[in-house]
């Protein structure tokens, strides 16, 4: 018995025979290879394509009035959408976690539906409801408001789903402690709850922003193919159809750059808001 136990103890588990460094390198290698195949190589190809006609061609296609107005539009609309999402998303998460009411489970499931619905269908539905033949008397078809509406629809789940678990885990005794120290509900929310939700809100906001920047399907019909509602993704599609692939690539790269800068900024903010956890 002793000898058997002894041999067993002496034989290390298979994985442990790999040197530590080797295992770490393997993990890193796999991640890099995967990211390269799926993300980095396609983006590199895109960058190469966009500068294929020289930097001049890149710049010219980027500064065309259509491209400029499309970029401006998507930036403004995305910021509006993110701000609205941060407020309503946090509120929805709050209600889902803190309140109990009949139908809560169903409501909870409804939140994810915008993810499941093909976005073109979402566009058609919104157009039918809030278009020229609106049964509720709201007609925003082919306006910038419609763009905001569509993007709100497709980005709904992000903030809700990132805030919800954090709120669920939040120590309720912190709130009781604040109350015992004299803080009213508003003060407690502002000074105790909100700072603890900020990282999750920012994470949701980053995802929502990235999604809004690239949204295409729901806007195809809703924007009515007008210049004032043409976002970059639609313009890119139009350029590809007309054979201007360099222009399309240039606009795409710019879109990516803007998204990258914004995501990095939000990352900085998140880092700052988590300073207490380091």
């Amino acid at each position, binding site marked *: 018995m002793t000898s058997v136990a002894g041999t067993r103890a002496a034989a290390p588990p298979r994985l442990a025979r790999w040197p530590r460094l080797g295992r770490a390198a393997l993990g890193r290698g796999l991640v890099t290879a995967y990211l390269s195949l799926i993300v980095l190589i396609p983006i590199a190809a895109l960058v190469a394509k966009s500068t294929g006609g020289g930097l001049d061609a890149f710049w010219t296609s980027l500064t065309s009035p259509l491209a400029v107005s499309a970029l401006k539009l998507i930036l403004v609309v995305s910021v509006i959408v993110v701000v609205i999402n941060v407020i309503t998303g946090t509120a929805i998460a709050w209600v889902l976690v803190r309140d109990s009411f009949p139908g809560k489970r169903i409501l909870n499931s409804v939140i994810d539906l915008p993810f499941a619905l093909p976005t073109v269908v979402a566009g058609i539905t919104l157009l039918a409801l809030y278009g020229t033949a609106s049964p509720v008397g709201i007609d925003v078809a082919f306006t910038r408001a419609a763009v905001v509406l569509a993007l709100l629809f497709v980005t709904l789940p992000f903030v809700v789903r990132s805030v919800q678990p954090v709120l669920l885990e939040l*120590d309720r*005794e*912190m709130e*009781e*402690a*604040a*109350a*015992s*120290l*004299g*803080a*009213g509900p508003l*003060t407690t929310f502002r*000074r*105790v709850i909100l*700072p*603890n939700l900020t990282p999750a809100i920012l994470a949701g906001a980053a995802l929502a922003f990235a999604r809004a920047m690239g949204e295409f399907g729901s806007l195809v019909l809703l924007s009515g193919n007008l210049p004032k509602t043409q976002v970059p993704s639609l313009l890119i599609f139009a350029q590809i159809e007309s054979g201007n692939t360099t222009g399309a690539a240039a606009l795409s790269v710019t879109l990516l750059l803007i998204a990258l800068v914004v995501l990095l900024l939000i990352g900085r903010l998140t880092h700052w808001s988590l*300073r*207490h*956890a380091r």
Partner: protein
Amino acid sequence: MGISVKGASKKFGDFVALEDISIEVPDGSLTALLGPSGSGKSTLLRVIAGLEQPDAGRIVISDRDTTDVPVQDRGVGFVFQHYAAFKHMTVKNNIAFGLSIRKRPRKEIDTRVRELLQLVHLDGFADRYPSQLSGGQRQRMALARALAVEPEVLLLDEPFGALDANVRKELRVWLRRLHEEVHVTTIFVTHDQEEAMDVAEQIVVMNEGRIEQTGAPRDLYDHPSTEFVMGFVGPVNRRGALFIRPHDLEILQVPAVEAEEAMIERIVHLGFEARVELLLADGEQLWAQMTLAEAELMELAAGQIVYARPRHAKVFEPSGASRTEELAAA
């Protein structure tokens, strides 16, 4: 002055957490609410704090009926078992919270925070975050935070429950000293009888939503009024109707009046104390507590036949009365 609870009752659904509880906590005293989990002690504390509304009864703090006063305005300092530290704030800001929402001048806050940091021995930790503190340090910070607003009463809910045994003992001593310094009326909840005995001047023993007995630590131990208190505030042997403290069980090596024959099953050495486990002829088990020196002097060993005799024992009459029987003839 102090705190009085008059006929407080509280139900959670069908569960009766508090049943017609009345207690008086003298001004400036240190009182323990002692009981097993589910006895209602934490609920009572939360009712006093205003974190829970009683279904019936009144809460009076410093001669002011606070039953309908919200927790924010009750002037209570509350300390939670799991610290409830504001994770996103530094130690300094945690302690300053109560003062800063009262919009006190910055200078005053700084001075007060510095005093409190000193009081709880956290000088030098002002700019740390709670995650960088040990459990004991976090609880001291929570205490300073509660004291910052100069509460009329300090309520502690199992304040040392989440800490290591060693830290717990240290903080116990420290809390007693602190209380001598600040002298604020304090109630703390615990399920640990030793902790209650060590720290409190007055102990309220609770069981199943009711008060079993209130008294000084010594009183409860020597004169428990119910079987429950007898068993809860210290170890006890039961022999028929007799309740015998293990240190009241005398072990003799020769037969004597009132002494029962028993076999030593096991001797457990616990530092200076020895625990002698006995098996009686009828199969019942008792244990006796003595010093290790005594056990060694008598050369006790497992397997030996000895004679056990209670020096005194307690009998609880069905009517609720109790009497102490002096049994040792010596």
